[in-house]
């Protein structure tokens, strides 16, 4: 079972404090946590701080009792924001190399089956022969998610996983993430921009603005009209739709250019 607690963590890049004093959790395996906030709020840095790519004050308490043998990493996988690469590797190889990190040269039957299954799970098995340099932004995003899933993570940190995906793909992925979390006791934390997605798919939500935690807790309690006004600077309403779900309706920005 995975337990993740953030205890007053912070981070600096150069001389600039990018994150300070963020406490949240404990989160457990099976939780889906959304990290939201305006651009440049520190969401990416928070992910990097949690998985140890950036140092800083505070403590990330991460308890994980590995029961599966042969795991080559600590169970935490981070998927950085979408970047395009021009490397002479096929989609298949890009996912295979993620699987084989820390492993030996030999690619076993089992390795290949795992890669096939992962590609199939994300619906990109038909892309497996394509060079990654030829992919669209959305396709590359799916490959990045495959590169994390193939490593059998217990904690998955996804930095804006749906930013380049079309409407149906983005819902497919978010629904898949939620079902993976519930089925495999995986803890999934993802940075999202669409608050309606957050309302639908996230159990907990952390709101980051200017490197600080503005609000955190159960998603329904966190996303409020006051928050939209104060943090996002928009005039917005939260209203139930005809299906009975709460929806965010934005009427406009507080400071409009025209």
């Amino acid at each position, binding site marked *: 079972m995975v337990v993740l607690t953030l205890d007053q963590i912070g981070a600096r890049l150069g001389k600039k404090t990018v994150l300070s004093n963020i406490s949240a959790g404990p989160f457990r395996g099976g939780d889906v946590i959304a990290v939201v906030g305006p651009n440049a709020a520190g969401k990416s840095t928070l992910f990097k701080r949690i998985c140890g790519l950036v140092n800083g004050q505070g403590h990330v308490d991460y308890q994980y009792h590995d029961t599966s043998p042969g795991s080559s990493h600590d169970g935490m996988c981070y998927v950085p924001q979408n970047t395009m690469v021009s490397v002479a590797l096929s989609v298949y190889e890009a996912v295979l190399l*993620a699987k084989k990190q820390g492993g030996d040269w030999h690619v076993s039957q089992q390795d290949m089956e795992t890669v096939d299954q992962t590609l199939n799970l994300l619906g990109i098995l038909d892309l497996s022969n394509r060079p990654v340099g030829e992919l669209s932004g959305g396709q590359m995003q799916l490959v990045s998610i495959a590169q994390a899933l193939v490593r059998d993570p217990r904690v998955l940190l996804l930095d804006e996983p749906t930013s380049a995906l079309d409407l149906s793909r983005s819902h497919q992925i978010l629904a898949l993430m939620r079902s993976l979390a519930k089925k495999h006791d995986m803890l999934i934390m993802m940075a999202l921009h669409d608050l309606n997605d957050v309302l639908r798919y996230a159990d907990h939500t952390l709101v980051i603005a200017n490197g600080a935690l503005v609000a955190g807790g159960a998603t329904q309690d966190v996303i409020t009209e006051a928050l939209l006004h104060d943090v996002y600077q928009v005039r917005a309403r939260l209203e139930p739709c005809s299906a009975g779900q709460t929806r965010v309706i934005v009427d406009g920005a507080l400071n409009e250019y025209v």
Partner: protein
Amino acid sequence: MKLRHIKNQELIGGQHYRHVVRRRLFLLAGLGTALFVSICFDLSLGPASIPLVDVVRALFLPGTVTDQVSVVVRDIRLPVAAMAVVVGAALAIAGAQMQTILNNPLASPFTLGISAAAGFGASLVLAFGITVLPVAAAIMVPVNAFIMAMLAALVIHMLSMRRGANTQTIVLLGIAMVFSFNALLALVQFLASSEGLAAVVFWTMGSLTKATWPKFFVVSAILVIVLPVFIRRAWAMTAMRMGDDKAASFGIRVGRLRLETMLLVSLLAAIPVSFVGTIGFVGLVGPHIARLMIGEDQRFFLPASALAGALLLSASSVASKTLISGAILPIGIVTSLVGIPFFVSLVLTNSKKLW
């Protein structure tokens, strides 16, 4: 009659990958064969032309040819031909790994100023007998070349680690290094005696003719030391091409891997250059040929780069003897003249958008 669409059915996933691996092994074997043929031509050509059959016999059945043929092939031409192979392999591996860690298809020992730095270090010894470290006279040139090359590599590494540095700035810095060291080299030539000047000029043209077995063994030893390190890190090195953030997210210590690779690469680039002089473009073109043929999985990319580099230099050695009959052109001139058109055609026909 049942229609069969098996031909149209594209294999995907692991099934296809198995074919890919088989094709790559086949391509590697092809490169190896081409290299062997090139070596045989290299051994047969020279002031006295020796039939290919006798070359092969002299190599594998030394008793079946005359002593004269045996001496020419094994003692006179083989060190040169073998040196072309190891130098080509070392320079191409250096280029391949620089392109990998700097994530830049333009990186190579030649384009980033490492060769120029080695040339400057060597020229200090050749012209004035100035050494950086007090070492025996026999190894002054290589040691000086290596230290200068390593300094250049470290400067590039440190600058590339600064925040805000991207692949473009690294290449621009490399060009600055090339110009700086070439200017310093010109200064050495200007100040040198006519005897020293001749030595420096000949050295900068690059030549395999002074190859000896001890030099061959030193370059081979470097390959034997460095290759296992790269082999062990094949998956991590391949991941470096996915970008720093992605590589780090796989648990790779990006900064450390880059620094260690840079040091090993400067060793691979500097030692051959210190023995045979400036030989350009093998380190740039070799990896590109490998990449186009075989992709960038380092398990195949690394041997393919080594073979492609070895083949390029060996073929250049053949060309250096045949372009002007009766003369052996300095090989540095040939690699550039032969390599550039070949490289340009590769780049222009690159349909896979690999860079």
